[in-house]
């Protein structure tokens, strides 16, 4: 059975497409079998909502009089990068305000940063823009201190170089002191285990061979419409295997995404603070998967019990880049609330919101059903596990 993007989009326009979320597909396959489900379903929606540090927004403020070639730029005292054109700047999600105490009194609180400014921009809150310049003949102004809101400025293009991680470590702490990481507070001596995924709802986990998600894929991004712009940084897609060669689900793929911030919504773009680690932005992403053939349906119907995360010690091994894992656990085991590591029962918790991921998949489903969201065929398919990309390291 083969369907094309054109056929599926025609059905969407006619209001006749059969759309289900990835969770609903799992139930459908169990009920009717894979072949029947693959024939019936046209589109499967996925969703995820979690901190995504490699995020930020390209801004163009418009020119002041006299004109200015902005050199150093601050938004609510958070530095933005001005080393592009005169009134262009990039504000990164993890940048902290000038004079932030950071980890001087460890663990620092990181209450405010680029991610929080981005959320406030979307909320149409007034933001203080300050800039300095060295002045040129054509751009003579040297200082600017003013208030802007999102609708005052020309462009605000959300561009996130690495989002929607295909899979991620399950972090534990083998050391004897509490540690503060991007996966939250980890208690000593295997006190807890934290993981971050939407599991069976997660976009790239449901397209392990990158067959449908590629350059130009139209997505739900931050509450509005966005697009996949490239593969993300550190894109090393692979299929995990245990010592016996048994497949344990995919890991390593990432996406770069882009969209117009002005049509997004602060429910899906939130400033976030990780104690002892830093400030960041939590992003909501949803990606539709066209059921072009049975193989795509089979991957899209993977369950939490088929998808695995490596357990990694963040006390000693991870910070020192010591390779190896403490074994693999399935997302079904992680979601049960307890896993066993080194013979000890360890309570688990996610840092990624499954209820919000579910909501995103439902919203995207209704957009497609209502005929207002058409699927796009990727212009270019990204490297997949078959390409065997391996990470390079520094030093």
């Amino acid at each position, binding site marked *: 059975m083969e369907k094309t993007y054109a056929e599926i989009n025609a059905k969407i326009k006619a209001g006749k497409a059969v759309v289900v979320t990835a969770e609903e597909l799992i139930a459908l396959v169990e009920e009717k079998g894979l072949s029947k489900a693959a024939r019936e379903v046209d589109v499967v929606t996925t969703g995820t909502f979690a901190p995504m540090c490699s995020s930020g927004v390209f801004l163009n403020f418009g020119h002041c009089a006299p004109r200015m070639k902005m050199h150093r730029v601050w938004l609510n005292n958070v530095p933005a990068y001005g080393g592009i054109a005169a009134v262009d700047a990039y504000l990164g999600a993890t940048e902290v305000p000038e004079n932030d105490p950071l980890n001087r009194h460890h663990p620092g609180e990181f209450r405010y940063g680029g991610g929080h400014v981005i959320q406030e921009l979307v909320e149409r809150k007034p933001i203080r823009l300050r800039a300095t310049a060295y002045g040129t003949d054509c751009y003579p102004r040297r200082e600017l201190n003013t208030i802007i809101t999102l609708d005052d400025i020309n462009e605000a293009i959300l561009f996130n170089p690495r989002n929607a991680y295909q899979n991620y470590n399950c972090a534990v702490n083998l050391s004897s002191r509490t540690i503060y990481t991007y996966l939250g507070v980890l208690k000593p001596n295997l006190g807890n285990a934290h993981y971050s995924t939407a599991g069976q709802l997660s976009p790239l986990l449901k397209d392990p061979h990158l067959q449908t998600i590629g350059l130009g894929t139209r997505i739900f991004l931050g509450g509005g419409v966005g697009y996949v712009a490239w593969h993300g940084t550190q894109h090393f897609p692979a299929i995990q295997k245990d010592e016996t060669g048994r497949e344990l689900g995919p890991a390593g793929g990432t996406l770069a995404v882009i969209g117009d911030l002005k049509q997004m919504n602060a429910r899906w773009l939130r400033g976030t603070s*990780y104690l002892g680690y830093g400030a960041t932005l939590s992003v909501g992403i949803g990606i539709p998967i066209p059921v072009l053939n049975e193989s795509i349906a089979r991957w899209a119907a993977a369950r939490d019990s088929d998808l695995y995360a490596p357990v990694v010690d963040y006390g000693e091994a991870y910070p020192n880049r010591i390779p190896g894992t403490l074994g693999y656990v399935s997302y079904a085991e992680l979601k049960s609330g307890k896993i066993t590591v080194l013979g000890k029962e360890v309570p688990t918790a996610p840092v990624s*919101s499954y209820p919000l991921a579910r909501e995103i998949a439902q919203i995207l489903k209704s957009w497609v059903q209502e005929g207002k969201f058409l699927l796009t065929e990727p212009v270019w398919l990204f490297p997949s596990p078959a390409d065997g990309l391996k990470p390079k390291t520094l030093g």
Partner: protein
Amino acid sequence: MAPKRIFLRFSADKSEQPIIYRLVKDYDLIINILKASVNPQKEGTMVLEVTGERYGEGLEYLRRQGVGVQPLIEGITRNEERCTMCGACTAICPTGALYMKRPEMEVYFKEDNCIVCQLCTKACPMRAMEVCF
């Protein structure tokens, strides 16, 4: 004597009288104002830390002035608009007051089990957990 914390309520007509000044001058109490606010109806609330031997007399003075006096009860509330139900608090909470309902993976807060240890207020990435007086 260790400092004691009390919660005070002032009616509109009391908010403009120098009552706290009297606690210091007449009862020799060392005070630290932790929180003070006056609403648009001119009713005031205050969280006060008080140290001094004549603490009991000071409290009686306040009551005679018609100021509402109660011991300070600290509690934790969850700001439901900020909470994204990520779950990061659930393995940190020592009493299980913050817990996950499975398989929905929704986070619930059972205030009765909360011992106000305040670990969640720091661990919550959305800053949804707040200490309130």
